[in-house]
């Protein structure tokens, strides 16, 4: 039986806006299984990103529980959440968010050295991972402004997985990329997932969602649909696409 890595109970998240309370996530119960590639979809404003931040300890829920491997994290202080994130999570953002004043290798190592001690093995691992995603040794000393959007996002992914996180979160990682770059990036995600990495990804792109194993549909702060994708190999891409499209049409996407 596959164990759950992340679980929420009655999760709520509200924002105060001009004195008005806006309830973005409402009493949400959810379980993310270890090794799953979970995709969260929904229309704009449905609370996808808010849910991702609450799950990942980037933000604190207003009410309810978030359990990571059975441990409640919603009561953690900001600094405790920072430690939680560095030990357990990796993040890939839509805008990449590389550190502008650090070169490619340093961007990756900045994420690594807060968790582990420096060693030749660590540096080698960073270089290997970068090479695997197509960043050559010559590019290691480049600064983010010298990279294309796709290259930057690949560096972002390496930075996210350098610590072998227990779970990888991605917020529309291909949102700002062209189709070619998107494909490259998604291939990396698929590759990482095949090696057992748990992934939670927010997207509104069908092609991106097709890479997942489970699609959750969010509407008005609650999960209204939970679709398990056919396993790779059993169905061809067309079938997967049809199945997902039917699910999404059912959800009113």
């Amino acid at each position, binding site marked *: 039986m596959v164990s759950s890595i992340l679980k929420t109970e009655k999760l709520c998240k509200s924002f105060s806006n001009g004195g008005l309370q806006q309830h973005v996530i409402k009493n949400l119960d959810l379980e993310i299984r270890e090794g799953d590639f979970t995709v969260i979809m929904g229309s704009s404003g449905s609370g996808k*990103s*808010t849910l991702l931040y609450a799950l990942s300890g980037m933000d604190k829920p207003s009410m309810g529980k978030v359990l990571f491997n059975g441990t409640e994290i919603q009561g953690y202080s*900001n600094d405790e959440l920072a430690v939680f994130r560095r030990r357990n999570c990796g993040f890939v953002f839509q805008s990449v968010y590389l550190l502008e*004043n650090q070169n490619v290798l*340093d961007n990756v190592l*900045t994420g690594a*050295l*807060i968790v582990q001690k*420096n060693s030749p093995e660590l540096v080698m691992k960073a270089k290997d991972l970068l090479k695997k995603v197509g960043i050559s040794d010559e590019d290691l000393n480049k600064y983010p402004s010298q990279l294309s959007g796709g290259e930057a996002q690949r560096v972002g992914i390496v930075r996210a997985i350098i610590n072998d996180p227990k779970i990888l979160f991605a917020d529309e990682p291909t949102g700002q990329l062209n189709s070619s770059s998107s494909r490259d990036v998604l291939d990396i995600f698929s590759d990482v997932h095949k090696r057992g990495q748990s992934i939670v990804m927010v997207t509104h792109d069908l092609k991106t969602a097709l890479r997942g194993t489970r699609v959750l549909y969010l509407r008005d702060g609650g999960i209204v649909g939970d679709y398990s994708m056919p396993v790779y190999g059993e169905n061809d891409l067309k079938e997967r696409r049809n199945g997902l499209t039917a699910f999404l049409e059912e959800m009113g996407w």
Partner: protein
Amino acid sequence: MRILRLSLFNLKKNKREALAIIFLTMITTFMFSVFITNGARIDHAYDEGFKASGSVNRLIIIGEDQYHDEFKRILEEEYHPERLSENRYIFSAMTDVLDNNNEPLSQNLLFVTEKTERQLEDFVKTEMMSEEEIARVEHPIWLPDTFRISKGYILGDTFTVIKAAVPYPFTVVGFYESGLQSSDSYGFKCVLSDADYDLFSMIYRSGNAHSYVGLGFDAPADFSLDDFIDKCEASSSENIRSDFFDFSYDNEKNNETTFLSIYLMMTVFLSLVTFIASLFMIRHKIGNDIEDQMQQIGVLEALGYRSKEISLAYLYEYILSGGFGAILGGILAVAITPALDQGIMIMLGRGMHESPAFSGVIIVVLAITALVTLFALLKARTVKNYPPVVAFRRGINTHHFGKNPMPLEKEKGSINCWLALKGFLSDVKSGIGVSICIITAGTTLLFALLMVVFFKDGTKSLETLMGTDVNILMVNLMSDVDPYAVRDEIASLPEVEKAMVTYDLEFVSVKDAGDPGQIMVYEDFNLSDTLFPCYGRFPEHDNEVMIAFRRAKTQNLSLGDSITLTSGGLEKSYIITGIISSMMNSGTVLYMTPEGYSRIRADGRAHIIYVYPAEGVSLDDLEAKVSSLYGMSAKDTVGSSAAGGSLEEKIRLAAEEKIAVLLSQYGVTDVDYAIRIGDQLISGNSRNFVIKEITTYQGIIKSQMAPIAEVTKKYTLIAAVLITVVIAVILAILSSSNVRRQRHSLGIMKSLGYSSHDLMTQMALKILPVTLLSVLIASVCVVLINRVFWTALFGVVASTNIPVIVIGDIGLILFCYAVTYFSAGRIKKISVTELMTE
């Protein structure tokens, strides 16, 4: 309007930083305004006060026995002075008095009659009793106005002069503007009734040379005191230089305004430090603002705004905040003027006759605002370097295409430390401004700290620069007493650490010098607790002398040079073996061995014993012990109650008191008496007295040095606090401004798992290299400034308290670290989610 709105938006968004700029410009304007409005007034205040008194600008008093009528003729014929008058004076140096709180003090006093006073000046009364009230007062006294202004005397107070242990209480009937003799250093001129003056004339009558003839006059510009004394000596064929006392407008003004001028100069220095720091802080902040709002700049440019117009947005911000701060500072300077006037009057001991020129404040306000504007403009103009495309590519200017300092693959130790140093090396340029701020402010802070520590125990540290041992009893022996035998007896007392025989401070002329010398003799200089040569060594042979640092400076003398002394027709040359910090008598003291002294003063006689108390023994207790051993001194015996029991005891006590008066006040050296009552013969002699007088420096230190020490301590303490606040404000602004500028990167770091504490530590560590270097430079600067300060002010070389500087350095570094760390607390408010939804 949009541009102005952007300025207002920035001000509103960064309220704390705007408030800090307002604070800094306010402090700067306030201090500059205080200097501008009061600098000239202090100079004028003395002049105006002097002018209001109608005083002559010079008074030379000469011992009555040494004075010859010929001197006045020489003065008239050779120098043609105006308003020349010749009068009698009583001058009493280091006089014991009881102040209005009945506290004992030691002061230099000059007693005159009203007639004499009116010949010297106009006797302008500032406050007085009615004529009827004065008529009812038995012993009236008029005191210089400084007693009312600075010392808190009021009409009707009692001013008690103690002479030969006898108190002479006077009632203060009025205060008057005194031109000369209106300070602790030069003494106070007190106007007595004719009857009281006559009484004091008797008490102070010659023999002890307390009665003087004074020549008061307006000296012509080319008047030379040395030249005059030379002519007088030639005329009288006597060595009388040491009997001349000179009081002049120039000397007294210089003496009275020196400290105020120094405090004002320090105020200017403080305001400069604050101003420089403010400018760099503003420069840094604008740079950060521009980077922070790069996208907005790009949008405005894309909309057709010229870079000049966008620059104006930043300019308005500083015109508004800087101008507001400057106006507040100006208002504060005006508002505080009455209190400052009071302070200046207290320090000068004179009334303020000139109104403050507030136009100076307006000029300062405008100048500070203009300078802030100019500085802001220069930095804001960099907007033109960012055309829309560049501006849109936000942060382009922070890219480093060249070196990558401290690559992380070589990281060792702490990642926070490594990233902080990496950040510092990537942006060394911005560290220069911070460095200048810390160097200037740190130097001031360390100097203030040195002063506070130096004056922490009042005058105790200052005493080490006096050039003589201060915490001693000076026991003046009767002429027929063997000083060495007494010394040995005293030295054997358990209350005594050591004792030493020495001589009176005798005046001698120093060839080619403007002032005479006073010889201080130590049979063994190593006995001294406080004498340490700054350069060279103590004199060891009869042809060697040690001089004060001030004399070395003024006469351009150095070790190995010779000085020639003349006294009583003798002229002797001495080799300078040592130079010492000596404030005593304005650095005129010459230090010699007994043999050296005898060469120039063959008639000199050692009859004084310096007695050093043992640890924990007070001078009062020691004096009581010495008195109990040898009986009261002649001086103390005078006026003591002859309350013996039998007739014989009463007669003996009365006789001893009479003898004491003769010994202590009339220069009599030997007295025998015999009184027959019926068959009984009661006889005795002066040889019962061993001690003529016991004196200490404590009274004079309390009256002259304690106020200086107190004011300096308070001033430097305020300066230290102020500079600490300024440093804190600047670092807080820089830190919070840096957090704002790096909000994006910090948010990313947070998402990677760096805690707020990690990032705040990095912020604080980032300025550590700059702080360390700056504090080191500040320490070197403060050593130099300390040296210049003491040399310029007191003519001494004060050793710099290195441990205090080291402690100050450590404190400053920790303070800078802590302020930067806590000011970066804004990092806690950076939300990772907000960053991602931008």
